[in-house]
Every structure is written in C-alpha cells, then in structure tokens.
C-alpha cells in the first residue's frame, strides 16, 4: 500500500447550532435536555396549517459568522425546501437554503506543518435542525423526540482545500473557536451542537482531476475526525490500487471498530427536489445591519493569538491555551494591564494555579470570586519578595475561594516574608555559628552545602525569610 503516492482531498461541512433562545421558525425553547417533546408546538411538530416565521437573532448570528469568516453577505438570499421522508423531519421537508445562500466566499486560516494555510469557505447558509430518532437496539419501535426540530443551524461548507486529516482537525478546532468566540455556538461536539461531515477523495500525486469523493457522516468528536479520515483515505487507496473504483456513497464512521461503513439503507441517492420555499419571502438584509454587526465583532481567536505572542511575547503554547477561552484571555489582559510585570510570569500562574483551581472547583471565569486587581497585586507581592512563590500559591488558593485581598490573607496566615536585612543577618550569623563544619566545607569548595545552610536559616526564620535575601546574606558572610 502506498498511501504516499496519493494526495488526499478533503472538504468539510459543519452544521453548528446557533445559541438563540427560541427556535428558528417558532417560539419554542432551544434548551437542551428537556423531556421528549416538551419543547414543541404546532409549527415545529409539522402539524397541518402551520407556517414558519423567522427569528431575527438567527439572522444576526449568521451574519456574525459570515463576516468573521470573511464571507460576502448576500443582501437577498432564498429559502428552499429540501424534501425527504424521515420520522425526525416532521414536515417531510427541511427549510434550508439552496441557490443563493446567505454567505459566500470566505476563508479560515489554520496552522499546518508547512505554515499557515487559508482554507476557503464556499458558502454558509441557514437551515432548521431535525429532531432525534432513538433506535431500539432490540429491533422494536424507534422513538421520535422533536425538541431539536427547528433549532437554528448554520451550515458551513469549505472548499476541498484540506490536504490531510491533521489539517482537518486544525480546521475544525479553529472553526469551533471562532464560533465560540462569537458567542453563537458552544462548540460541543458530543452534545451535537457542532457536527461535522467530511467529503474525502484521493488523487494520484500529480494528477489533474479530483478522484471520486465519498461523504463521511456521524463524526462526533475531534478525535474521530482524524481517525475516520485516515481510515477512509487508506480504504480508498486500497480500492484504487487493487484495480477498483471508489463508489460514490455515504459512509458512517464506526467509532468502535475505527472504520467507515457504507450506509446500507439504500434509498436511491436522495432526490431532494429543492424548490424555493413559498411560505417565506426572500431573506432581505436591511441596510446597515451587516456594518453594525461587523463593528461589534470581537477580536477573533487567530488575531488574539498573534497579539498574545507578539505584544506579550508569550510562547505559542501558552498563548494558545490562554486564547482558547475568550473570557480567560480577557482576564489575562485585565490582570496584565495592572500587573505590568513579565507576561510569562503571569501566564505561568494562569496555566498552573488558576486553571488547576478552576478545574477542581468547576468554576468558570465568569464565576471567579477575585478581581483582576487582586491577582495583579499578588504577583507584585511575589516580585517584591513579600511572599515566597510557594506561599503565594497558598494565598492564591484562599483568594480563589474567598475573594479576599491577597495581602490580608498573607498577613493573616503569617506568610509575609521578612525582608528586614538586619533580621536576616542575625539569623545567618546564628546558623553559621552553629554549623562550623559546613562553613568549612563550603569554604573548601563544596558549594552544595549552601542549600543545607539556606534551609537552616529558613527553619530558624520559620520559613519567612526571603530566600533571595537569605541566599545573598549567606554568600556574603561566607565570603563568596
């Protein structure tokens, strides 16, 4: 098998739910986790006589996504019916967009081993989600829950610019981050609010024509994306190398076996019989709406990442983690603005203590009890030597839990380090006097002894000695 002779060609279709409170065409709640059919009405149940009415927030969110991805927003776009029968599709058609979608021709930049690459986005359109079918494993009836029917979706279709499964993973992560930053999606693959289908084909390197593409569905975690695509690439190469032809089909990813399977429910290739939706007039975007939304766009993840690495001089690893959650990045900047010390130090605190405690206490940035000012003050205390690094961790933990000021906590816990040079000198003198052998060993060249002596001084000072001062005083007295 020589996969290396082949060039994979991948396009991704992402369906992302928009975080509106109500559904796209009716006022039912979009909240996840309700009992079956608790969030349904005549409209999203597809009852006789019902008609759709568009939710204005859906349009706003979709335009946000479109502009964030650099798309052209069509001032007029058309709703279309996509007709097929399935129990989770109550009207027997899905209201979507076909000709003339809302957004076209954008791009998303991702990082690859060969540097940044622009993955072009062909189109973004609006549509309604279907409900859920729960199959009975025993072969009995399936159960239909239409709570999800009518939840608004954007479908984001990339051009087949992606060249490897790793790039696919990068693209999806980057796309997810953008949507979460925009506040329009919660980026949750497992819960189904962010779904991905992949179109995968292979071509011999140097060939001029694309190969037959296969659609992969049911990829519901970022891990599986790469596995599914890698498996499929391998499968297609094997088919071609053994003289066969890749069939045009839809395949499901079987996470248990790690392979893709043909969808055997062979209704002939769907004829969706698209036609313009007569119950909805064309979607006309009012003057000024796109400009207003653009002005209100937040700084996007990639731009923020670049700024964190260049302005703050943070390593990419740190910046990526900080930027991955917009509130976290905002907090970082707030604290840094007051701290004004080395950003890397602050970053270490974020990546270390802060994230650890947030995870332990299951607390998000929005629910933190301390203020940026307090955090900055703590770091300044460390820099000034008022507390040791370890003591500061204790203080931070208490600050995290209670929101009390760091100095107050440190004082109460007796953690303020002694900075008084006189007191340090006195302690050093006492220790040196009590350990003449070690003094001799040090002076004879065994510099490691210094650690023991520092420890003795710290013990004598009940841990409150400023280590830097202690070190310096010892060395001075030892005649270094």
């Amino acid at each position, binding site marked *: 098998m020589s996969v290396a002779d082949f060039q994979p060609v991948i396009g991704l279709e992402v369906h992302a739910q928009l975080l509106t409170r109500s559904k796209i065409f009716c006022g039912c709640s979009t909240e996840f986790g309700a009992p079956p059919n608790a969030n349904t009405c*005549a409209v999203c*149940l*597809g*009852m*006789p*006589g*019902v*008609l*759709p*009415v*568009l939710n204005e927030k859906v349009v706003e969110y979709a335009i946000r996504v479109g502009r964030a991805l650099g798309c052209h927003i069509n001032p007029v776009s058309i709703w279309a*019916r996509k*007709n097929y*029968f399935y*129990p989770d599709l*109550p*009207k*027997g*058609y899905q209201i979507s967009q076909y000709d003339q979608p809302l957004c076209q021709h954008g791009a998303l930049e991702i990082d690859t081993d060969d540097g940044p690459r622009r993955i072009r986005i062909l189109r973004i359109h609006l549509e309604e989600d279907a409900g859920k079918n729960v199959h009975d494993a025993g072969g009995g009836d*399936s159960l*239909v829950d*239409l709570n999800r029917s009518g939840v608004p979706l954007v479908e984001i279709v990339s051009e087949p610019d992606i060249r490897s499964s790793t790039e696919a993973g990068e693209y999806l992560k980057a796309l997810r981050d953008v949507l979460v930053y925009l506040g329009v999606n919660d980026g949750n693959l497992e819960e189904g609010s962010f779904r991905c289908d992949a179109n995968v084909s292979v071509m011999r390197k140097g060939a001029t024509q694309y190969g037959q593409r296969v659609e992969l569905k049911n990829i519901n975690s970022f891990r599986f994306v790469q596995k599914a695509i890698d498996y499929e690439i391998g499968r297609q190469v094997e088919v071609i190398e053994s003289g066969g032809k890749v069939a045009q089909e839809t395949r499901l990813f079987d996470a248990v076996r790690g392979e893709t399977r043909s969808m055997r429910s062979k209704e002939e290739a769907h*004829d969706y*019989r*698209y*036609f313009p939706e*007569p*119950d*909805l*007039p064309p979607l006309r975007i009012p003057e000024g709406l796109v400009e207003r939304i653009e002005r209100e766009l937040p700084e996007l993840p990639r731009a923020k990442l670049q700024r964190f690495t260049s302005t703050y001089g943070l390593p990419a690893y740190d910046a990526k983690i900080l930027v991955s959650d917009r509130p976290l990045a905002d907090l970082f900047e707030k604290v840094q603005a007051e701290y004004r010390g080395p950003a890397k130090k602050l970053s270490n605190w974020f990546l270390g203590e802060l994230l650890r405690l947030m995870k332990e206490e299951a607390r998000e940035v929005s629910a933190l009890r301390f203020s940026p000012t307090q955090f900055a003050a703590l770091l300044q205390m460390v820099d000034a030597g008022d507390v040791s690094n370890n003591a500061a961790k204790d203080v931070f933990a208490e600050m995290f839990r209670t929101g009390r000021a760091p100095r107050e906590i440190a004082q109460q816990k007796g953690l303020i380090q002694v900075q008084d040079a006189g007191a340090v000198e006195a302690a050093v003198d006492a220790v040196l006097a009590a350990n003449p052998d070690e003094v001799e060993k040090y002076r004879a060249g065994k510099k490691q002894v210094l650690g023991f002596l520092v420890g003795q001084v710290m013990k004598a000072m009940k841990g409150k000695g400023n280590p830097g001062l202690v070190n310096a005083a010892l060395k001075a007295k030892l005649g270094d």
Partner: protein
Amino acid sequence: MEPTDLSMLELGRKLASGELSSVEAVRASLARVDRFDGQVKAFLRVDREGALAQAEAADRRRKDGRRAGPLDGVPVGLKDLFLTEGLPTTAGSRILERFVAPYDGTAVKLLRAAGTPILGKLNMDEFAMGSSTENSAFFPTRNPWNLETSPGGSSGGSAAAVAARMVFGALGTDTGGSIRQPAALSGIVGLKPTYGRVSRFGVVAFASSLDQVGPMTRDVPDCAALLQAIAVHDPQDSTSAQVKAPDYLAEIEAGVKGMKLGLPREYFELPGMDPEVRAAVEDATRALEKLGAQLVPVSLPHTRYALATYYLVAPAEASSNLARYDGVRYGLRADGANLLAMYGRTRDQGFGLEVKRRIMLGTYALSAGYYDAYYLKAQKVRTLIKQDFVDAFRTVDAVLSPTSPTPAFRIGERVDDPLAMYLSDVFTLPCNLAGLPGLSLPCGFTRANLPIGLQVLGRPWDEARVLRIARAFEREHDFHRRTPPLGVA
C-alpha cells in the same frame, strides 16, 4: 319570513335591536340542517352544543351592551380545512379523519372574536383538490338547485350550505377557483381576496403560493362584512401582507359610473363554453354598461397556458405540503412491518385517487432532471400571466368574465376524466396565479334553473372596487334572492 331568509347583515341588525336572538338564529339554522342536509350533505360535522354555547355568549354580550361587531351572533360554517381547536378537522380526507385540531387558525380566531357562532365543518374535495366535492373521502355534496348535480368544488359544502340557507355565511378557500366556481354553480357570492390579504395560518395547505381564504355569502354586502372580519395582517403568516384593509362597506353602493371594465377576448373565445352561460354573462356586462361603466376589450394573451401552469405549480407545492401526512405524529397510520411499509400503506390508504394523482404529478415536476422543464418553466409562464394583468389594468379598472364555462354538471359526469374536470377552472385559475382578488356573483339562471356566475377580477388590494362593481349589478337584479327548490315537491 324565516330568520334564515335574512342576510348576515340583516340578521346582525335584528340581533342588535333585540328583535331576534342568536340562539334563535342558530336553532333556525339547525332546523334547516336537520330538514335538508340529509339530501344536500354539506356538513361533515355539526357542532350543536358548541354553536348554541357561542350563541348564548353572543346574546349575553348584546344584553351587556358589548356586541363584538355587526356580525356578532350570526351563525357561519367553515370548510373543513380550517383548524378548529377541539374539533376534528379532516380536510375531506381519511388520512385526517380522526385528527382533532390542537389549535385555532387565525381566521377562526378572528371569527370567534367577531362573535359568529360556528355551526359546523363543511364538506370539501379532499385537500381542496377538485372542482365538484366528489373527491371528498366521505361523500359528495349535492347542489341544492338540483340534487343530481355538483355544487362545484373544492368548497362545495360551504357553497351548498349557504345556498340552502343552513348557514348565513361561510368561509372557503380558493387555490384555482375553489371559492368562485362553487359560488357560481350554487348561485351565491364568493370572493378570493388578493394573495396575502387573509392569513393562511391554521388552514390545511394545498398550494402555498396560491391558497387564499375567502367569504361565501348570499349577497355582496355580506361578503364585504365577512371579509372585513378576517382581512387582518397576521404575524404568524410570513406571506400575510402588512396592508391595512379599508372599510369594505364604505363605498359599496357607489356604483360603476366612469369605471372601465375589461372583457378579455381569450376568455370569451373559449370553445366548450355553455351558450346559456355566455348569454347570461354577456347580458350582465351590458347591464353594467347601462349603469355607467365603459366596456373595453382587452387581451390576456397567455390565458391559454394558465391551465398547464397551474397543474404544474399547484401539484408541485402540494406534493411537498402533503409529505407531513406520514402516520408518525397524527392522522391515519396503517400497519407496516417497517417504516417504509408504514409510510407507503398509510399514504396509499389515507389519500384518495385525485390527491395521489396530484402528488405524483407534483413530485415528478420537481424531480431531478425535470425541475427546469416543468416546475421552473411553469413559474416563468406564471410571471407572463401576471404581466398580462398588469398590462390590462393600465387601461381598465377591473376585468369581467364568466366564472365557470358551464353550469352545475351531474355528479359522476367528470370524475373519471381528470382533464375534463380541470377545465372547470379555466376562468378562475389565472387570478390565483396572478395573486389578484376575484369575486363571483349570480348573474342568471339556465332554463333548467341552474345558477350562472359572473366573475369580477380586480387589481391587487382593490377588493373594495370589486365588491362595488358586484353590488352595482346585484342590486339591480334579484338573482341573489332566489332560493333553491329544496323541500318543494
């Protein structure tokens, strides 16, 4: 004089003065139902308790001095595709035979607010597909003027109930003529408003871009009053226009002096038009001329394509609108070993032949490879048909024509020949394709005493003028006061 001889507005005035009560009016209507509906078979369901309760409420309002309006307490009927909460709504189909509506449609809500007690649900061609009410899954309705003949369709039950004075007025729907054609065949007044004038929310959909709700009454002022009650913008219907309705009665008696009325050559040249129909309609146009209007020949050159256009667009939309009837959430479900079998059997058993035919036609017209040649092509020709009217309305204020090429035909005569049946709507279809308001009123009778209808088509939103033209003719004649020979001999 029987209460049921009164028009809606006349009854309304007597209710206001206390001369009659709504309960009496409902009882009088029910008495006629009991006496005649066994023969006419206009009703699918009579809601005696509900109607009486609503009548009692109307009477209480009147006593308290809080009448809801001029029609408060006047009993009406509804074509059985208006969803009425708590009552079955069948659309004339087995697939919805036991479907109980969980909500009231907007037009129904508006009628309840207007205070009109709803006597019951009226028979119709299944899913509004038909021109004779013979496609009802349950039974055909009979024309009160001759019980061997059809009252027209698809709002045949509504037309017959009004004609037989079992209700004072009714609502129907019109997609290709389904209010106007039965109005013509049954000798009553029927109006299809401009597309978007009346909300479609809560009306079982047939063809979304063509369906409109409209009043069916015994005379033109009633038609105006009933239209007034339902001509309201509805935020639940995205095709409902935000055009405020004028007072439709304000100018209704103002006559036709100075108006230019178009006579479309292509309509009057149709072969197969019944000569008595032609004669009556031509007489009617001359009568309007005597009343001060100017008759102007006009041409609507794409008229001959209207039938083909309609029979591609309407079935296509219908094939999609009827996909929801799949046995999953409501309606009939047939047994099936698996989902596919359940779907297939449910829809085969639940739908009648005409509905299946149109679903097949519509599905074909939208299918891969045929969409451009059929559906898209028809929608383009539709634009040309609309443009014909735009051009004509530059020189005339309204267009006159026969409503139906023939009077009521015998039940059974056309039902096996779809194309012959479709021809019943040649004069009414173009108006739906163009979204214009259109009205039919009685303008004569055949020697066999079957009603003949005159159609008046107007500019978009010009219902007031259409009503005014119709009223000018009506008050000079007595066609609207004639009664069908029910219970005679």
